[in-house]
């Protein structure tokens, strides 16, 4: 099958949705003439022009708020945060206006906006540029949070996110942008396009001994760990990629744990109140009698992101951390 880098898969999603719906537009810093700081939108400005691809000043609260207002009027903004960390200067717009106006109006309006960008460490950009706020936005009812690990999921989930009538915060990863993955041509697809619903986890590797549950790039780390566990310890790990943090596919998670009786959640965020805490608490609540051991968690080492390249590597989740937890269970 055809393979594409993650960033090209996203670009195809944008291109197809720009084509499908004239209300879809892309806005963000350097997304148009510059082709995107990480080249995710490369070529789209040339093809779609100034109306559909709009370079914004460095005013995240301003332009994301603008997008939210425009979405209430029926437009479908796809907003790029050059780094998702910059959401913190737009927090009020993203947590209040996008998430609560539908509620506070008794359902008289909705905000079909997508806010997207990379939320990850690993490129040594330091503490302020390496936030992973899946848990923070996932905490807010009214919001949806997606974090794809592969090119295939990135394309299919982005198309769904753009068509979704609720605000979707789509967290990507600069270390995944260049990774190739299989992405079928539309012609080879039954419905002629790639659509993946939010709220459906994907078992990326079958296993019987332990469930490694993760989202984003940590899914790849989990797969790597699973290979080593099988090769070196004859432990068959199942890898569950939740793909979307909210809505969350608890069923697939619980079914996996009921089969393996052991679970580890792996995420890049800091541990306190992370997505892994939510999933661990859910598993112990809903699969208590199936657990042969407590649900364990792997996260970044609990400090702001370290600049030094070799040290940031140690700080971030890596397969050795996972293997250590699994062997200790």
């Amino acid at each position, binding site marked *: 099958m055809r393979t594409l880098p993650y960033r090209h898969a996203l670009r195809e999603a944008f291109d197809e949705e720009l084509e499908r719906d004239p209300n879809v537009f892309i806005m963000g810093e350097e997304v148009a003439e510059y082709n995107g700081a990480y080249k995710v939108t490369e070529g789209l400005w040339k093809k779609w022009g100034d109306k559909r691809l709009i370079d914004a*000043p460095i005013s995240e609260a301003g332009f994301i708020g603008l997008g939210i207002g*425009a979405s*209430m*009027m029926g437009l479908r903004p796809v907003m790029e945060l050059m780094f998702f960390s910059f959401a913190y200067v737009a927090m009020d717009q993203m947590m209040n206006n996008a998430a609560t106006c539908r509620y*506070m109006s*008794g359902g*008289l309006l909705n905000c079909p906006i997508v806010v997207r960008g990379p939320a990850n460490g690993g490129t040594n950009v330091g503490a302020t540029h390496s936030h992973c706020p899946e848990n923070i936005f996932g905490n807010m009812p*009214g919001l949806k949070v997606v974090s794809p690990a592969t090119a295939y999921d990135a394309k299919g989930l982005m198309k769904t996110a753009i068509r979704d009538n609720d605000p979707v915060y789509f967290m990507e990863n600069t270390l995944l942008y260049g990774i190739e993955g299989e992405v079928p041509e539309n012609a080879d697809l039954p419905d002629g396009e790639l659509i993946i619903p939010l*709220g459906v986890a994907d078992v990326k590797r079958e296993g019987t001994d332990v469930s490694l549950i993760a989202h984003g790039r940590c899914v790849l780390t989990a797969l790597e760990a699973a290979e080593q566990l099988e090769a070196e310890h004859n432990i068959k790990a199942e890898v569950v990629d939740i793909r979307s943090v*909210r809505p969350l596919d608890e069923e697939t998670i619980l079914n996996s744990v009921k089969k393996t009786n052991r679970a580890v959640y792996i995420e890049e965020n800091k541990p306190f109140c992370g997505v892994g805490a939510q999933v661990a608490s859910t598993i112990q609540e809903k699969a208590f009698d199936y657990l042969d051991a407590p649900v364990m968690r792997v996260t970044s080492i609990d400090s702001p992101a370290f600049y030094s390249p070799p040290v940031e590597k140690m700080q971030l989740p890596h397969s050795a951390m996972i293997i250590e937890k699994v062997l200790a269970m």
Partner: protein
Amino acid sequence: MATTETADPTNFAAAPVNSALDAGQKTKLLSEMMRIRRFEQAALKYYNAGKMGGFLHLYIGQEAVAVGAVSLMGENDHVITAYRDHGHALAVGMGMNECMAELYGKVTGCSQGKGGSMHFFAPDKNYWGGHGIVAGQTPLGAGLAFALKYKGLKGCAMCFLGDGAINQGAYHEALNLAGLWDLPVIYVIENNGYSMGTSQKRSSAFKNCLAERADGYDIVWDLINGHDLYEVRAKLEQAVERAHNESRPTVVEIATYRYYGHSVADANAKKYRTPDEIENYKNNFDPINLWRKRLVEEGVVTEENADEIDKAAKAEADASVEFAEQSEFPTEEDITKHVYWEVDNGTDAGNTGKHFFH
């Protein structure tokens, strides 16, 4: 630079937009201001009687601003404001019943009891709220204007904010976007002199006025006396024209005054403002009295007519209280409605994965 361009800038009654008004329209403007005041007087009474929760920010004293501005609205003109939103809501045509019921937290309220006083919405009337976070609505206002322009519609977005709200960063970011992208948005600063207990001088650094900051974004601005309905309409009309014909933003600062505290809970309303200051405005600048006087002088209405209009407004307000009293509260099942569109509409997306976690 200020921009007043009527032949005789002081004779606002002669401005085309005002001279074009017929007696019926002028009377309707009086009626709308009276309705807002009577509605809020009723709300105040029953808020104090413990019928409502949260905050109640009264617009009493500022009525000519919302009524004057909204009276200029055409099919593609939109409004958004902050939490002091009852006046704008009634002005765009929301019913007293749904508004009073909302204050009561009843399911018959405009937001089905979910928003309360600060969060009235009526998208069908181009009214986008009702927002509680100071200046949080200002980028939304730019977005409404952006959408109009994107769709190729000749319209504008009037975004109201207070004199204290201008010190939120979001407002400045929105101004820059409006100026940079030629957005047909009008920022209406309702300057009632105070942000809660803080006077303009204690909260804002400025040279001559607050609207002047627009110069830094090359945006035209103007100053308006908010007690004179003719002036509000005449000067705001220029901003509307600018938005419609040039797709350019405007910032207007309208001098006005609130008779009550910041909210009804404001314990210090008479401490940070002298009684004289309040009385002086009530006696000499009350927008309703002035308009009423004017219409009587013009022979548009008699004192008797005016009294009847006021009586009708009061009766309507009393009826809305009755409606609210009789209405039901929402139920526990309503709590998780209106969180997600996809869930509310029972779509596949709304039925896939877990959306709620309690």
